[in-house]
């Protein structure tokens, strides 16, 4: 959020959001299509991310926060693969704990899932951190995403914080009246709180709609026009495409 209003724009922030979005998808697709044992190519992909990170300079928390949210899920799904996967031609590693062994192809598969997920998450974090959210919305609209979806995303972004504040105020109010949340019967209070929040959001939705009507809303969301894509933007896209395709072809 703090980066939203930043007036100083280093290079990646200035690139047109549509171009950034396209290059993001391009990079991720190429990375995912790379066979897992082409370690040099992955080295190249992550070098690109590192370069981006140096210029965008996200805080450690912005970058690592999402990684640590996603990582446990991947681990949970993928960590058993090396144990369960059988090598076709033998060549696993015995761990020396009973008969526990890991297979070579299983390990490779695990690495495959891990490295690609990590690349995807980091690219998205860098994209989001270098692009103000209104620009992301405008880019999605420019790339012909369904307008209703874009509109919904805009509303979620605008009101998520308002609701979070409301929930916080409500929590303070019940805390100041001695609520400790220790006993099972107190769970009902949380239930009612959620119900109240839902009702309030519902009513707010009605009021927001009225406010939109009052300014002439007729069911079609008016969006601003798009700025034209400049040479520097195309240059960025071309560079990403050449580097990634180059690495991918070299890894064939």
């Amino acid at each position, binding site marked *: *959020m703090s980066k*939203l*209003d930043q007036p100083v724009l280093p290079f990646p922030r200035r690139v047109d959001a549509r171009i950034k979005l396209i290059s993001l998808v391009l990079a991720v697709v190429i990375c995912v299509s790379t066979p897992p044992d082409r370690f040099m190519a992955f080295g190249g992909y992550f070098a690109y991310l590192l370069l981006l990170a140096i210029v965008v300079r996200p805080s450690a928390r912005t970058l690592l926060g999402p990684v640590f949210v996603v990582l446990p899920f991947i681990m949970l799904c993928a960590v058993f693969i090396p144990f369960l996967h059988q090598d076709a031609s033998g060549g696993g590693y015995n761990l020396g704990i009973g008969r526990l062994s890991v297979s070579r192809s299983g390990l490779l598969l695990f690495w495959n899932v891990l490295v690609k997920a990590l690349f995807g998450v980091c690219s998205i974090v860098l994209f989001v951190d270098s692009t*103000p*959210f*209104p620009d992301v*919305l405008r880019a999605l609209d420019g790339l012909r995403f369904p307008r209703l979806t874009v509109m919904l995303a*805009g*509303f979620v*972004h*605008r*009101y998520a*914080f*308002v609701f979070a504040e409301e929930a916080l105020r409500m929590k303070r109010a019940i805390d100041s009246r001695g609520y400790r949340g220790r006993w099972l019967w107190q769970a009902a209070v949380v239930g009612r709180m959620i119900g109240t929040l839902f009702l309030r959001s519902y009513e*707010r939705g009605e*009021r*927001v709609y*009225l*406010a*939109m*009507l*009052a*300014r*002439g*809303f*007729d069911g079609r969301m*008016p*969006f*601003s*026009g798009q700025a034209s894509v400049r040479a520097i933007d195309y240059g960025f896209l071309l560079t990403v495409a050449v580097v990634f395709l180059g690495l991918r072809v070299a890894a064939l």
Partner: protein
Amino acid sequence: MNEVAVEISGLHYDYPDGTVALNGIDLEIQSGEKVGIIGANGAGKSTLLLHLNGILRGDGTVRVFGSPINKSNLSAVRREVGLVFQNPDDQLFCPTVYDDVAFGPRNMRLAEQQVAERVSRALRLVGLDGLERKSAFHLSIGQKKRAALATVLVMDARVLALDEPSGNLDPRARRELMALLKDLAETQVIATHDLGLVADICSRVVLLDRGKVVADGQGHDILENRVLLEQHGL
């Protein structure tokens, strides 16, 4: 100048749950007038404002600059009457202040160039120029209130209908808002509990109680009549 801006006759409105909100309102507001609508909670102030631009349509007639509000002229009426809601978070729903202020003009299908000119004029008027790219979430309540006002000023509305414009404001923000409202030449209909604001801005006061007009006259006549005010819950 003495054109009738809003003319309400025999207006009744019941909420869907059966609560009577307006019970026979007759009111005529001249162009350029600044009218304070006062009354206790639940007297019908906000409901009355919602009728001024056809968001609610009760029984009876509401005329705006002579033409009765009906389905076919709704968008024209909403261009004439700008409604500012009590809670600016209801009014500011776009990702940036600019988009919010531009929402009305874009609905009027103006060219983006004209939209930009109008937006910068409106933001300058309310003293928020330079905050175009901000998200409403990052504004103070005073700034949000002024941004909400800009969202209707930008439409060149001739009548401003304001619901509790000074609610939740600190004294300085309230003073600034009052100075701004005083300077605006538009016809203003202000529903509020803030009697100080009414005394300062409004030449005329309308007192509502249980959906009826119980007093209508010069500001100071009504505001100095303490017995009357106390009788009707103020």
